[in-house]
């Protein structure tokens, strides 16, 4: 090797992978990050301590957790939670779409009514709404459809109509629709004005414009926001306990007063079930978002399985590269 320490020559080619110069001589050393290693170690130790406490602390009574986790009474409560949440999620979203469209309409009255509704329902705590409805039958004994101040056409006996389940669903839906209205409105506003114009210029019927052109595009930004709401709703449904509906939380609560020693394992049962529900919703969210990303991105985001496979391939390539060096 005829290396001279003189200035770099611009004429001679830069050193290449010749047998006389092993690749390793030119290998770029990645920057050392000791801080990162220390932080990782600290976090791992803390996490291990937490798990250790969770498993070994007799306070949690994992044997009692196992006893309660799949008890029929708990599963009945879980079913009530699912039922209330599902109804309220659907009715809340439909209500939200109606109020969002009213808010975006050309009529000042519709806009004002929608704004006032959202303002009022977002201001009042959900528990207050539920308790109001619970005492509703005392305030209004019959519900009737007719002309205000005029004759009524249809009458309902309110006490028969208002089951605990109906009160819970109506209360949660009212609350949910106020938030959903803003989520949907935001989604509709996020659709480019050119899309409205193109749909109008093609003479597409008004309903078709909304259902097939504007709303599907709005759903791309509605989905993550509404799922956020939905997860909130799953947890808020625990408040229906106060209108004497025994949901997951309510059941655990009442079992806890019968078996005072089991309160902590019962709360753990509730926690784990809520974690499971939220996880299922998050997985569904991923695929719904992926579906509505069609056309918005040139390639769809990879599924977790695809990502795992890509990650493994990456690791394999890195090992081969290291071996080559």
């Amino acid at each position: 090797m005829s290396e001279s320490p003189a200035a770099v020559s611009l004429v001679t080619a830069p050193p290449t992978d010749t047998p006389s110069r092993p690749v390793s001589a030119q290998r770029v050393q990645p920057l050392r990050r000791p801080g990162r290693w220390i932080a990782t170690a600290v976090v791992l130790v803390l996490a291990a301590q937490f798990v250790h406490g969770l498993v070994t602390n007799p306070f949690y009574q994992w044997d009692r957790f196992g006893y309660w986790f799949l008890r029929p009474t708990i599963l009945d409560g879980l079913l009530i939670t699912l039922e209330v949440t599902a109804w309220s999620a659907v009715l809340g979203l439909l209500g939200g779409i109606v109020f969002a469209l009213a808010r975006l309409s050309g009529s000042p009255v519709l806009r004002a009514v929608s704004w006032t509704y959202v303002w009022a329902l977002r201001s009042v705590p959900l528990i207050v709404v539920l308790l109001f409805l619970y005492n509703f039958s005392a305030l209004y004994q019959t519900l009737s459809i007719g002309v205000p101040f005029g004759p009524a056409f249809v009458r309902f006996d309110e006490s028969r109509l208002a089951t605990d389940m109906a009160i819970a669903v109506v209360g949660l839906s009212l609350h949910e629709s106020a938030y959903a209205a803003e989520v949907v409105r935001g989604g509709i506003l996020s659709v480019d004005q050119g899309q409205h114009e193109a749909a109008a210029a093609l003479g597409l019927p008004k309903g078709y414009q909304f259902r097939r052109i504007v709303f599907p595009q709005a759903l791309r930004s509605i989905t993550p926001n509404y799922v956020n709401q939905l997860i909130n709703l799953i947890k808020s449904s625990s408040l229906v306990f106060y209108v004497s509906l025994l949901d997951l939380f309510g059941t655990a609560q009442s079992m806890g007063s019968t078996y005072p020693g089991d309160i902590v394992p019962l709360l753990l049962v509730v926690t784990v079930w809520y974690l499971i529900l939220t996880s299922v919703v998050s997985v569904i969210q991923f695929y719904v978002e992926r579906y509505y990303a069609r056309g918005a991105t040139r390639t769809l985001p990879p599924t977790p399985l695809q990502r795992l496979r890509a990650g493994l391939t990456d690791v394999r390539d890195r090992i081969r590269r290291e071996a080559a060096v």
Partner: protein
Amino acid sequence: MTTGTLDRTAAAVEVHDVHKWYGAHRVLNGIDLTVRPGEVTVILGPSGSGKSTLLRVVNHLEKPEVGYVSLDGEPIGVRRNGDRLKELSERAILAQRSRIGFVFQNFNLFPHLTVLDNVAAAPVATGRLSRPEADALARDLLARVGLADKAAAYPRQLSGGQQQRVAIARALALRPGVILFDEPTSALDPELVGEVLAVIKDLATSGTTLLIVTHEIGFAREVADRVVFMDGGRIVEQGPPSEVLDHPRHERTRDFLSKVL
């Protein structure tokens, strides 16, 4: 084109004394224009002269405060009621719009639909064709604009020139009597302009009524039966390209042409 489904009858467009304000600013100041069936009219003018607004008034995307546009003698967006003009219902206006094609500067394709669905949507939604008929028509039209192989793609996977050709196919799917082009090549990279102009030229020679707002003077000279020069919301002069482009009578036209040529 061999398929009979692509036939359409060219319509006449008449603009009657149209005035349009944006707030206190008058964008259109008494426009009168007659376009014969099958005629290709290119509208030129500096930005802010009202040419895009005029085009949008023709299919009633913008409502003029005074005056109206008629298609084959039928007023668009309004009806005559004695000596007054009354606004039509939204449904009636939408029905009229489906006889007028519109091609936007920014394409405005529906990004969540495939290219085929973009083209086939309108004939199905307006109840003119069944789904299979619309799909067949869409494939014919895509072949005509040279994109038969892109039917399954999504718009964002295409180049700008390809997207604009899809937009033209989408406008043709309703077999409109007239097609309006609002600066169809202004959002394109220079090397993509030609492919779009070629498609428009093909339409021009096939006897469709076209109204084109553009800055492509050379293209105007080539395809236009008539050139309209606008400034300040008025038509300054109009005539065959050989007159307006080569021997403009007005100082304002000469000034404009000297800047863009």
